[in-house]
């Protein structure tokens, strides 16, 4: 069985079928992209994977365990973390604090530890701060760690979202349009960064409209249209798939 196995999941909003019996498999260490026209149901798919929405139908199995009936917190614990298409940072918190919140689930000390500032508390805190700074450095935000998230320009906010997701120590990262709002130069940097993540052992599921990024980085691609999976395959196959070109890519550049 695959690392992450999505079996025929469906989401209804009233009369609208936003996601329609979609199945996917993701293997460990892969970068899998999900593309499709606007309103195809990609973000909704992420929302189901991360427990924001309950499924209308189907099941999600991660590392052999059913996770679709778990709370969002349990799903993060299990190892799926995400970024948001509409940036949702902790606006009035500092950049580094955003990352530290991301580390919340693996910051282990008890209430008494924190109340009495025990040795354990101090060592865990300084270790987490060190890791946080490392993560920020790796994504190029170390200089801005004292800033408040809300004051960052759009592109940096996107980066910070990724940093925050990484910091949960997740096994799978679900990135929803991380390159949106970046210029080609910047998205290229991002691309390198994401590759680096994979090399470190992360599995990545990516939603992206920037074909430069998608085609260059993905191991495999799924295409969704109107809630249904219409194609899957290697980047080269997808790029030449008639259906995909018609529904999504438009005339090639």
């Amino acid at each position, binding site marked *: 069985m695959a690392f992450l196995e999505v079996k025929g999941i469906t989401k209804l909003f009233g009369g609208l079928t936003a996601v329609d019996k979609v199945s996917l498999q993701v293997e460990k260490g892969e970068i899998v992209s999900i593309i499709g026209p606007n309103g195809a149901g990609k*973000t909704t798919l992420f*929302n189901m994977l991360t427990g*924001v929405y309950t499924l209308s139908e189907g099941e999600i199995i991660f590392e052999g365990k059913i996770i679709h009936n778990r709370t969002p917190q349990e799903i993060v614990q299990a190892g799926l973390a995400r970024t*948001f298409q*509409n940036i*949702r940072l902790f606006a009035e918190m500092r950049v580094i604090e955003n990352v530290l919140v991301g580390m919340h689930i693996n910051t282990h000390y008890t209430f008494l530890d924190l109340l009495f500032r025990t040795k354990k508390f101090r060592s865990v805190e300084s270790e987490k701060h060190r890791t946080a700074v490392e993560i920020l450095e790796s994504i190029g935000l170390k200089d801005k760690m004292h800033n408040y998230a809300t004051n960052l320009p759009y592109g940096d906010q996107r980066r910070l979202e990724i940093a925050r997701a990484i910091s949960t120590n997740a096994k799978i990262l679900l990135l929803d349009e991380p390159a949106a709002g970046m210029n080609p130069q910047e998205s290229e940097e991002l691309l390198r960064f994401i590759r680096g993540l994979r090399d470190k052992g992360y599995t990545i599921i990516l939603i992206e409209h920037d074909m430069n990024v998608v085609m260059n980085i993905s191991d495999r691609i799924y295409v969704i249209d109107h809630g249904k999976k219409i194609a899957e395959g290697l980047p080269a196959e997808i790029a030449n798939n008639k259906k995909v070109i018609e529904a999504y890519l438009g005339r090639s550049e």
Partner: protein
Amino acid sequence: MVLQQLSNGLTLGMVYALIAVGYSLVFGILRLVNFSHGSVYAFGAHMAMLFVSMQFGIIPAFILSIVLTGILGIAIDKMALAPLRAKKSKGIAALITTIGISYIIQNVLMITFGSQTKFFPKLFDFGSIYIGGVAFNTTQICISGVSLMLLLILSCVIRYTKVGLAMRAVEQNQKAANLMGIDVNFVVTFTFFLGGASAAIAGTLISGYYQIVYPNMGFVAGLKAFSAAVLGGIGVLYGSIFGGLVVGISESFAAAYLGGSYRDAVAFLILIIVLLIKPTGLFGKKGITKV
């Protein structure tokens, strides 16, 4: 007796509803709980009393008080709240500002009029009507009538006019409303005028009903009306009327069957229970935030 208590409760409920509409209106547009509303209501009542005592006649006094209180509403916004909006500060700062304003209004009323309870002439009295042994005071009926009419007019304004559309837009997203060419400040001013005017209407009618006015009259009534507005789903106008009725009737029955000292507790208990079952009030809609 049960019927009589029901009728008592209905009137009381209409009283709350009348005040609650003002809360809902301002909240509906600005997402701001206007804590000065209770004292604005007291201000309206005092103005009406003042003009009546100056021999203006009841109707002109009523109208003058509505206009003046509406202007007070505008002044509150222009002087205290608009600067906060310009700074894009959090709603909670505005909450404290309105608390400060209510201190000012209430104490100024006290200094000018004294803290004692004063007489207010009866507005319209055509005696009581008896239906099946239950007494309906005509004043009660008038209060209900006016509340319903006010609500109807306000609902129509918000639903069907351009100003109404602008009001809803400002509620949703002020920045975008600006970009649409909506004069946000005007819309807010207009809202505060309506809020003030409705408070004056409520203040005058209710004072006429109980025939008394006093500077602190807005405090308890304001709290109850606020909870009525929340109970009905704050921001939803017809919800306010309904919430007002629920609070009024439950209070009336609690006072009769549990004792008068329980009435306030029961009103709040019902509020809490309703909110626990339906966290956005009876008619409130959940905020839409797509992830």
